[in-house]
């Protein structure tokens, strides 16, 4: 073998080896990179599966109060979502008790996924319902509102997060009152008290006699129009008073009061702060005379916290300032404000819907339960770390 032949032979061999090494290294690197990407994608899909499972679990619990169906349903959701890992070595979905909340852990394992798991649960929510309770409600309509409030409370009680809280504000005549302070619904005693209180909820009390159709109110007229002594406290003595000169309908004091209630809540920050404004009366001017009878009688509501607006306000100013307040709460405290208008209150300041809240209308107060349900369905889930 001559020197030149030996060099040619070695050269060819070396070139072939370089190509082979380059190809092998390249393919190996590609395989490793793609595998890492597949694993990352599978983890994301497992997380989506956990989210769907948690939603399904909460829906089943809210609908039935039981979780038997939820377990198998969540497995279906999980196994259907994990297509990337197919054929799967195993998919497990299990309900995880977590402070009484609904939490689902979805575990995915397969040839491409060594271990991907994710959990989700309903995020805690602080809810304040602000009800315009002046003159627009019929007795039947208010009874349907009561039923809707109780259905919301029951829904929250079925699958409560330990930090879920609910409160109630009534407003009308340029005032707002804290009927139910923001409190936890997971505690049975408090839940029972709130339920009992809301079962007896009425419209704002006017001077007059209780009676007429379906337990309505027959207001006094003439000189006795603001006579809250006979009977004492008016038609609904346990409720805040509404004097004859207080004809305004302004949600601003309710928004201000709700903002203070959200701010004052102790404990960890909730996943969602939701304000639901319900109205059956359109916005109405707050006249300059508003509050004079109350002042003349030196009546001060001492049973619950009260907020009032200052001075007369036109409907345009009411809408402008209320929308600005809702927008401010959405920006400052991430409050999702929804507005539900029924009867004559349809279209009640639709601009109040801020921060992811919705504006819903219905001619019939019977739809309020479904409307509350639609608002509650929008409350998000949070990942369990």
């Amino acid at each position, binding site marked *: 073998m001559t020197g030149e032949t030996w060099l040619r032979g070695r050269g060819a061999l070396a070139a072939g080896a370089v190509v082979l090494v380059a*190809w092998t290294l*390249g393919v190996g690197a590609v395989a490793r990179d793609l595998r890492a990407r597949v694993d990352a994608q599978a983890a994301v899909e497992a997380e989506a599966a956990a989210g769907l499972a948690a939603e399904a679990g909460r829906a*089943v619990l809210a609908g039935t109060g039981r979780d038997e169906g939820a377990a198998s349903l969540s497995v*279906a959701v999980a196994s259907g979502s994990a297509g990337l890992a197919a054929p799967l070595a195993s998919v497990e979905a299990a309900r995880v008790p977590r402070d009484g909340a609904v939490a689902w852990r979805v575990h995915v394992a397969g040839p491409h996924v060594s271990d991907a798991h994710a959990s989700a649960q309903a995020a805690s929510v602080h809810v304040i319902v602000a009800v315009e309770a002046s003159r627009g409600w019929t007795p039947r309509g208010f009874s349907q509102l009561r039923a809707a409030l109780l259905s919301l409370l029951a829904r929250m009680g079925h699958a409560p997060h330990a930090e879920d809280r609910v409160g109630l504000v009534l407003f009308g005549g340029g005032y707002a009152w804290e009927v139910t302070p923001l409190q936890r619904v997971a505690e049975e005693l408090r839940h029972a008290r709130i339920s009992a209180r809301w079962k007896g909820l009425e419209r704002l009390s006017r001077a007059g006699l209780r009676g007429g159709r379906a337990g309505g109110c027959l207001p006094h007229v003439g000189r006795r129009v603001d006579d809250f002594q006979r009977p004492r406290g008016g038609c609904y003595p346990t409720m805040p008073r509404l004097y004859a000169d207080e004809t305004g309908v302004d949600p601003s004091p309710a928004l201000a009061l709700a903002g203070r209630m959200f701010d004052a809540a102790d404990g960890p920050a909730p996943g969602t702060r939701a304000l639901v404004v319900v109205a059956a009366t359109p916005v109405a001017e707050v006249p300059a005379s508003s509050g004079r009878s109350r002042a003349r009688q030196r009546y001060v509501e001492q049973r619950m916290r009260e907020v009032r607006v200052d001075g007369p306000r036109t409907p345009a100013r009411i809408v402008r300032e209320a929308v600005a307040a809702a927008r401010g709460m959405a920006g400052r405290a991430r409050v999702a404000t929804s507005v539900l208008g029924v009867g004559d209150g349809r279209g009640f300041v639709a601009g109040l819907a801020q921060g992811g809240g919705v504006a819903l209308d219905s001619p019939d107060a019977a739809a309020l339960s479904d409307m509350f349900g639609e608002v509650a369905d929008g409350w998000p889930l949070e990942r369990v770390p």
Partner: protein
Amino acid sequence: MTPAVRRGSSAVVAVLVAMVLVAGLHADGVAWLRTRAALHRAAVAGVRAVGPAAGPSGALRVDPAPEGTVRAAVQAAWSSESPAVRATGTPRFVVRAAQHDGWPIVEVEAAMAVELPWGLAFWLADGPVIRVRGAGRR
């Protein structure tokens, strides 16, 4: 040019070709996965549109209205993907209503033959197929 130099040049060219092929394989794989993730997002959006988060109007029934809702949500989600993802092909979405233990659920199947730029997708010939199932209401 001496024979040794010719052989050396050939080796360099061969290495370059190998690197290009490897790069193409990697680009195909990444595009396939990216498309698959987008299809999965669209299918999940469809399921969520009639799932428990959809509210009373989202109650699942076997009639055209929920299917339309699902399709609209799927298409909206797909349309929101980047132009690079949408350029890889035209997806086909199949929406089915089904039952699981007496509970209505919706199934969304997304399938697509990916048109990959490098033409090296012999091992990805069928394109991604996704199936997502989710809960509706009674």
